[in-house]
């Protein structure tokens, strides 16, 4: 890959604002995501984290503000266009194709990089390049033992890993992961955290997460949101020490979803 220098800014959002009628779900949010980093978006329920990630992925158009990917303005691109640029995402609720095998789920994701819809007489299961990439991504997401399983019968944790594999197969440089640890047991969480820690080297990861242990285990940088506004952004130590964060978030009754 040509640009793998660390600290290169991959994704940059400036003054992102989203209004739903009179409700301001996000106001003037700035997010910067660098290569090689895990950046965690933290905040109590209703803080606007999902709205933010939806604007970054193209699922929700921002009311105001600007999003740049590698310097290019992508504010008006659709989700599919952003995926083609190199921004991939996973969803809060598991979002796989349950009737397909693990391999076919990821192969289908890989196929999106070289779409040849007119080749209606070639066989999908003979697309060697896509199969190879799919296998590599499944391995990277820690699902090597499940390649030929029907994805619908996987455990919840494995399905979340499968989602990561699918995003990887699209060559995404930016991974937007919405609560990848939600609903997981401690063992599953641990293996997901291990997967997450391996990912950033050549990519940038923006992560919404509630699990505090996991957040401080993986985060290089944390952005705290409260009531749709940006409260503080900095390395984990700074966030832990911040009085404002403690008052606004950690000290309230809505603290620590463990």
């Amino acid at each position, binding site marked *: 890959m040509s640009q793998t220098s660390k600290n290169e800014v991959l994704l940059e959002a400036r003054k992102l604002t989203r209004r739903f009628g009179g409700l301001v779900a996000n106001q003037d949010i700035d997010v910067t995501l660098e290569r090689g980093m895990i950046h965690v978006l933290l905040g109590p329920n209703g803080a606007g984290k999902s709205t933010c990630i939806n604007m970054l992925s193209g699922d929700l158009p921002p009311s105001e503000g600007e999003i740049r990917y590698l310097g290019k303005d992508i504010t008006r691109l659709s989700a599919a266009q952003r995926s083609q640029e190199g921004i991939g995402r996973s969803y809060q609720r598991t979002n796989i*194709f349950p009737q*397909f095998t693990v391999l076919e789920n990821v192969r289908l994701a890989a196929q999106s990089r070289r779409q040849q819809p007119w*080749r209606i*007489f070639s066989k999908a299961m003979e697309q060697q390049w896509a199969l190879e990439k799919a296998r590599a991504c499944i391995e990277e997401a820690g699902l090597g033992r499940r390649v030929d399983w029907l994805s619908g019968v996987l455990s919840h944790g494995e399905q979340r890993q499968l989602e990561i594999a699918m995003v990887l197969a*699209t060559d995404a440089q930016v991974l937007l992961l919405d609560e990848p640890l939600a609903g997981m047991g401690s063992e599953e969480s641990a293996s997901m955290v291990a997967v997450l820690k391996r990912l950033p080297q050549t990519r940038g990861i923006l992560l919404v997460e509630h699990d505090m242990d996991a957040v401080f285990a993986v985060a290089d940088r944390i952005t705290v949101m409260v009531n749709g506004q940006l409260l503080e952004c900095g390395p984990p130590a700074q966030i832990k020490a911040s009085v404002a964060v403690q008052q606004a978030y950690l000290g309230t009754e809505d603290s620590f979803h463990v």
Partner: protein
Amino acid sequence: MNVNASLIVKLIAVAAIACVPISGESFYVELVAKMLLMAIFAMSLDLLVGFTGLVSFGHAAYFGIAAYSVALFTAKFGQMSLWVMLPAAILLSAAAALVIGIFVIRTKGIYFIMVTLAFAQMAYFVFHDTPLGGGSDGVYVDARPTAAIGSWVPFDLDNELHMFYFVLVMMLLVYLFLHRVLQSPFGRVLMGIKSNEHRMQSLGYFTFGYKLAAFTLAGALGGVAGFLYAVLFGFVTPELLSWHESGNVLLMVILGGMGNLAGAVLGAFAFEAMREFFADITKYWQLLMGGVIVALVLFLPGGLTAIPGRIKRALQGGGAK
């Protein structure tokens, strides 16, 4: 059912159908030919409903447009060559589906159902109420298309047997074609769209184009069925495009089991067989038919093709005790 058993059953079924003309009963030969062309129609709709997740309630439009093209072209130009008329009919249906698709693909769910219905009703009124279509009585096909190439005549569609085997071969070709398409990367994208279109978009697929392609392809294949209908029966009426027909073909797909090509074929055969059977016993046949369909949908939600799996599970369940 494993792959081999399923293949053997299908081959036996095809062989049995191929033997129907031995009976020598013209009535049955024509009935089975009709079943075969309705099977093409049902498979073309299944591509949309069962594989792409687009529930079209106006699929009869493409059937009817191709059927009318045979009658109108023949009326204007005299007897047509099969090798011109068949591609022309398919192209007209495909073109109609492409244009209509550009509008309807933008809608989803119940709106998609209503808009496909609305376009089909417009097509119905074009043939029912404008000078083009010849009114509610329909139009006769004055002469069946000829298969002659120069002075060589490989087969003759006026011959009942030739016609029957021509329809059978077309049905097999459409089945094999769709079977192949569904295994292609394109086919997998359609299945992905049916399962979760939003996810496909976030994976970088521009799903509009894929859905439009599927809609056009389904229209073209529906046109194959409509062409065969016009040639087989020698006349066309606006009723071919009516919402009853769109509903019937949807029922065939549901009856057989959605998302299964063999199911669509089976559904078409079962539907036409029931129609004949009930119409024989009573003039209130539609009441009986409706009752049977309600019962089948209630007690056999996976359609007729789900029966082998059910029997297998029942046997295994019994063996476990």
